[in-house]
């Protein structure tokens, strides 16, 4: 009977799972992350698989990292981690399939070939994650709190907060700011010197407390009215707008909201 392996949803946790499958010669049927925030997506118990849990072990994870770097190089490890950030259902099995072929040493060119059937899906997934991270650089909206710090909430599809923090540290090195991923309930906090990644309480209380602390001010309203004047009405193109700026991001963009008073109000087309 194959195993349905659960782990703590971190990349190190996943690497520990891979390490254990090799060490104990496990018959892996599925690898399932235990994520607190998307409990509704967690599939029901599979009757044909035996549940199994692997604890995260930093030592075995670092051994596996070293092995991947030796076999394929730093950039491939980086690519695997980026693809893993997509949190897509089944990405763990895809990475495992890639690593299996990589470690079997059956094909000498395999590590450098982006078009192999194991690598191509990971390559495209990593590209999608990087694309969202790049787009998010522009779509973070800071609100100014009365104490002079700036707070932004984001709700990206992929887990990209850590990929964009460096950009903002380079851009606002002297201010104090925070970017909070309200879906995954954690945030990056910068105090003028160091960045800290902290876990936060659940989504609802989080966005309410942020909205109370840093409400939209007059510059937000000026931005919204500036945004509305910039559209040329002879060229209105709602389809193009949706393609460039998908509706799932509108919730946290002030300029796409009808009513600026309530930050959590539903956007309308």
């Amino acid at each position: 009977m194959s195993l349905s392996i659960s782990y703590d949803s971190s990349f190190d946790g996943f690497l520990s799972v891979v390490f254990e499958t090799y060490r104990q010669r496990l018959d892996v049927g599925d690898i399932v992350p235990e994520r607190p925030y998307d409990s509704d997506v967690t599939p029901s118990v599979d009757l044909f698989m035996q549940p199994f849990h692997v604890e995260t072990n930093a030592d075995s994870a670092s051994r596996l990292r070293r092995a991947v770097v030796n076999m394929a190089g730093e950039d491939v490890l980086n690519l695997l981690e980026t693809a893993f950030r997509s949190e897509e259902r089944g990405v763990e099995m895809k990475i495992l399939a890639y690593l299996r072929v990589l470690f079997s040493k059956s094909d000498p060119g395999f590590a450098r070939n982006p078009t192999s059937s194991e690598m191509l899906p990971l390559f495209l997934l990593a590209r999608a994650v990087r694309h969202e991270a790049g787009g998010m650089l522009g779509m973070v909206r800071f609100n100014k709190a009365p104490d002079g710090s700036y707070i932004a909430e984001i709700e990206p599809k992929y887990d990209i907060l850590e990929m964009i923090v460096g950009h903002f540290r380079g851009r606002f090195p002297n201010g104090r700011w925070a970017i909070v991923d309200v879906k995954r309930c954690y945030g990056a906090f910068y105090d003028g010197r160091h960045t800290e990644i902290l876990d936060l309480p659940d989504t609802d209380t989080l966005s309410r407390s942020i909205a109370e602390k840093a409400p939209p001010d007059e510059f937000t309203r000026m931005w919204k009215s500036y945004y509305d004047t910039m559209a040329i009405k002879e060229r209105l193109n709602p389809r193009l707008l949706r393609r460039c700026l998908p509706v799932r991001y509108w919730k946290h963009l002030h300029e796409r909201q009808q009513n600026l008073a309530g930050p959590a109000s539903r956007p309308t087309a």
Partner: protein
Amino acid sequence: MNLQEKLNILGDAAKYDVSCSSSGSSRGAPKGGLGSGCSAGICHTWSADGRCISLLKVLFSNACKYDCAYCINRRSNDIPRATFTPRELIDLTLEFYRRNYIEGLFLSSAVVGSPDATMEKLVYVAKELRTVHRFGGYIHLKAIPGASPRLLYEAGLYADRSSVNVEIPSDRQLQYLAPEKNYESIFRPMNFLAERKLEYSAGKRSRYTPKFLPAGQSTQMIVGASGESDLQILRLSAGFYHQQRMKRVYFSGYIPVNADKRLPALTTKPPLLREHRLYQADWLMRFYHFGHEEILDESNPNLDPDLDPKAMWALRHPEFFPIDLQTADYEMILRVPGIGVKSAQLIVSGRRFCKIRLEQLKKMGVVLKRAKYFIFNPDVPANLRRLYPEMLRPLLIARPKPAQLDFFSQLQAPSLPAPAQLSIAV
């Protein structure tokens, strides 16, 4: 007039400028200041017409002394006029920037007083931002035609990118539509800036070498206001890319804003499809190693509205196809309709290790609907390998959606002559 009203008037006046890019200049935040440049450029939002907004695009003033027929800010129009003070504009830029609404400032202006007086104000704002506020974000300054070289030079030291808009793609039409302008006055600042940039980039460089217009120059042409052919437009823009080393040439489909007998009627729809085809041709020149003379020539001077320029080229040159993806040059793979830069690079790096199959191409994002007629692949059915251009053309054109007939609109516009006219004819 409060700041918000000013911002709305001057933003509204600036929105017909197409340029929005914030790319081409990479810089860290200055010591003690804020703001950085990202060489890929960052779009911050998209307006309801689908155009990206990355810079705070405003005019310094819209009280213009010129009377160009195509421009909304011309002297003879009765519209509200406003002028920023430098202080207001700088505060607005910094506050928007700190909230991450914008990537920087795009500052243009109507000509107030003299070109030099106007340019001086623009340069002053850029200089204050860079030196007093230590602003490291993107600054795009419009070079005012007729401004003195000293001011243009200073603008180049503070701005990332500068632009002078050609607006009308031929000199004669420009002088007809904008009596105060001519090509000489537009090309002089353009060439001056291009030469200074060349001087700065020559010789040994270190990271302390001051930069001059790190993101280069751009320009813009209005399409469809005067009767130029696509060939003339592409030839002019190819010239800009080669001679002035422009980074971008923008096209703006003419939107009638003024009633003027020299221009198309107010009810004219903006030629969006033509603008789109011109941009496609522009992309072919910039990223696909096409020359402008390959895309269009004297015998067919206009782009095909039904077919993109790359497919058009492929149909005119059946002798190059089908190509074998396994052995063809990268430049040749780029020329296959349906294969873009990213897929071509993926094919070239992947084919060293394995055969490229059709289903892999599909996963890479190649548009097989178009590409399958032009590639030689064991998976492609043999009957697709030799197709004549005349047979291929209808296969490549997207079939128009059948339109739902509307009973009532037919009633309101009778196609039969009215009875009164009939009796006259009798």
